[in-house]
């Protein structure tokens, strides 16, 4: 095995010392080695070495390492994805490590490697929250807020959101800010979102990808910008914002969550998991857009799939449609494709809603199930053009790249 040292990142002596300690069986050093190999920090990135060292540390009893191994299996980024193995490792590590307890909650909530069990998910999220895990507190808060698989409990949701905010968790501050906004306490909302936005670097807009602290900080900045727009009348051609419900998705449940929010907008009371259960694919797995369309019929709604070509002309036509729908007060469901080495297989798909636009700033407003409530995010027209393309949204796509959307069928 060759080891390439990258200068200026970590000293060679430090790496040698770390390796020596790891080889002597120090679990902390072994796990550090695993992270370095995973991320290519000071050492050439090597997935096999990363897993080897993580396994050694886990074998030595390190619960943090067990969580590392579990997460590798959950994401499928270092080894082939296997949710059952992931679940097993999280379960083993959860009593000792809050991050593993959070991940175990994710597995129970999102039916990853186990049957869905929201009650157990909440038990582990709340345990993790009590031990200082902000995202676990927020996840539990949003479950109680939505009543997904548990009795709706606004008070408990509020306490958990406050707990997350206390922990300076950006997503907790976003949710707490939204609670203030909904209660009409705009200054408190602004304060909360501003605090979130200051915790980590932000830009004019962010990337609507995986949930992360960075994404939540950016969401805080976006919500600050949107606070005035959310209270304004729409001006067709210039600005539109459609107030719509938001459902925070479980793992791998963006399609059903985005569609359930779309259905709720049209008067249904269906939940994200409820929508998923109308589709034939198992919980915890991605959902074919054809099945989502069929599910809309099962709840008595009429949706239409429309597609646009992936080129510039197609984008012009697609955004013209978007503005038409939004001006008419109707959100739209779209499918994105993210491309990059960080995604297992080189790409990832994501279904979400578009609920507004701001022409003067060339921005669109998303209602994204992957981020915490209210799910609102800003995206530039250029990013929308880049991401709103998909060739794997289901059998209907026939592998052809296009810009797909569900709209309300008015006919």
């Amino acid at each position, binding site marked *: 095995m060759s080891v390439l040292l990258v200068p200026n990142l970590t000293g060679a002596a430090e790496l040698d010392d770390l390796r020596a300690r790891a080889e002597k069986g120090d679990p902390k050093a072994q796990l550090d080695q695993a992270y370095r190999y995973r991320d290519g920090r000071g050492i050439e990135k090597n997935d096999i070495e990363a897993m080897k060292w993580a396994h050694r540390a886990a074998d030595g009893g390190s619960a943090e390492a067990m969580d590392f191994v579990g997460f590798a299996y959950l994401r499928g980024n270092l080894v082939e994805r296997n949710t059952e193995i992931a679940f*097993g490792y999280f379960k083993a590590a959860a009593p000792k490590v809050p991050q593993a307890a959070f991940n175990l909650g994710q597995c129970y909530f999102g039916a990853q490697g186990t049957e869905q069990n929201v009650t157990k998910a909440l038990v582990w999220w709340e345990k993790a929250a009590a031990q200082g895990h902000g995202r676990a507190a927020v996840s539990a808060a949003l479950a109680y807020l939505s009543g997904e698989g548990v009795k709706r409990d606004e008070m408990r949701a509020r306490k958990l959101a406050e707990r997350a905010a206390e922990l300076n968790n950006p997503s907790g501050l976003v949710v707490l800010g939204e609670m203030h906004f909904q209660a009409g306490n705009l200054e408190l909302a602004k304060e909360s979102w501003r605090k979130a936005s200051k915790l980590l670097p932000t830009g004019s807009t962010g990337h609507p990808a995986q949930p992360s602290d960075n994404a939540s900080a950016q969401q805080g900045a976006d919500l600050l910008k949107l606070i005035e727009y959310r209270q304004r009348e729409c001006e067709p051609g210039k600005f539109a914002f459609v107030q719509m419900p938001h459902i925070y998705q479980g793992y791998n449940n963006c399609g059903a969550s985005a569609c359930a929010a779309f259905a709720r907008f049209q008067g249904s009371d269906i939940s994200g998991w409820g929508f998923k259960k109308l589709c034939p694919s198992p919980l915890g797995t991605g959902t074919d857009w054809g099945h989502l369309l069929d599910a809309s019929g099962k709840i008595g709604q009429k949706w239409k799939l429309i597609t646009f070509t992936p080129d510039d002309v197609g984008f012009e036509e697609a955004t013209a449609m978007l503005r038409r729908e939004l001006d008419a007060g109707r959100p739209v469901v779209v499918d994105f494709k993210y491309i990059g080495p960080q995604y297992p297989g080189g790409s990832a798909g994501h279904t979400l809603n578009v609920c507004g636009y701001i022409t003067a700033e060339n921005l669109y407003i998303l209602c994204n199930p992957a981020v915490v409530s209210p799910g609102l995010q800003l995206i530039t027209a250029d990013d929308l053009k880049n991401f709103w393309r998909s060739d794997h949204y289901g059998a209907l796509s026939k592998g052809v790249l296009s810009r797909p959307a569900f709209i309300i069928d008015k006919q």
Partner: protein
Amino acid sequence: MKRPVLMAVLLMLLCGIATAAGQKPNILVILADDLGYGDVGCYNAKSKVATPNIDRLAREGMLFTDAHSPATVCTPSRYSLMTGQMAFRVPRGGTVFTGVGGPSLIAPGRLTLPAMLRQQGYETAAVGKWHIGWTFRDQAGEPIHQGTLEAVRRIDYSRRIEGGPLDHGFDRFFGTACCPGTDWLYAFIEGDRIPVPPVAPIDRGSLPKHPYANDCREGLIATNFPMEELDMVFLQKSREFLEAHVRQSPENPFFLYHASHAVHLPSFAAPQFKGKTQAGPHGDFIFEFDQIVGELLSTLEKLGVADNTLVILTSDNGPEVTSVVRMRADYDHDGARPWRGMKRDQWEGGHRVPFIVRWPGWVKTGTTNAQIISLTDIMATAAAITGASLPDDSADDSFNLLPTLLDSGAEVARPYLLTQAFAGARTLAIRRGKWKYIDHPGSGGNNYATKELKPYALPELVKDATGQLYDMESDPAEKSNLISEHPEVAWELKELLNQSKSSGRSRPVKGGSNSK
């Protein structure tokens, strides 16, 4: 300190190894039969049998403490040694041939260890027990594959025997089809024919009678087949090969595979070794094997090739039940020590075997190596040493040991170890680091409800467990099944095993990784 070694290894990986004289090293593999970890002095200080020659080999080379036969019985283990592939991956890969059993487990066209070495300019010879299957034919030319005495009677000895060592890379062969002293066909095969066919029933009444003689069945025996001196014949044939090679083609390297009858039952030590130990007939048989090892090493020295010969000594599986149980009781000698289980079992006693490598000038003398290795690894190691490239459809479970031979601290790039017990694909186990997951309940081989083995049966503490998980660091005797305490590890290893089964290999294909 590590970098020069690393560079040397990398260069050797690219180029193979040539000595100062410009010649690739000779390779001698001595494969004992049923020799246990505890049968050998350098592995067991409490052994009651002196093994001075094997001990000397260890002092002069590297002793591996965590080496494994791929299987817990002869045929699949030997298949795996010859091909670098786990036998359960091929049809009938769990079988143990008897008599004229076959056809060969080795598929036509599969690259074998001897064929690979022959491509690298080696003269190749196998002496002793083959046991990977042949195709004998009757007078009508029909293949005979039943392992029965009646099948032996049908053999047409004028016909070539197909599928043996000569068809799989060896230039020469002298030995037997299956276990030399055990079943039905008591005759030597030379090349691909039996020059002196068996004509008369074996007279078992004239053979020694003792508790270790019980694996000798009725059969037909050739007049030149000395039941009590088989290993002396094999020794003589190996010597003849070595002498002829050095005399006739000293410029080329050789590969000699010496697969002894010892110490498989029946334990018929040659007359000069009888009573040489205080450990009974089987002790004498082990002692004979050790002396044969000494003679082979001495032959290398006399011929002046010892310094350029890589010697590997190992065993095809753990020690036989009879020898373990009787010698524990009668001589306080434990051939399976310190492990649980014995031949056929999935526990360590079934497959943790002696493995010693001597290679003057390359392998540091007197070293011990705790890397987890398998007999399947000999093929990839030989490829690295000789500069041979392994096609993706060969040596599927073989990992190069060269780096760790040159530097005992270097790790073998093996992601996990597979072992198969008596029922082949139905009794598999996987080891990764300290964890060993056995994908079946019980031994996978011997019946511990029998009177003989009942005293060694351990209670299964996990009720209705479908598998077993052991922490080999804290529990090398495999007493505590941790499958309930660490289901995540058991599940992961089971999945890894399933993945290995479905992918058909554990060695990653070139340019790729099977961990993705």
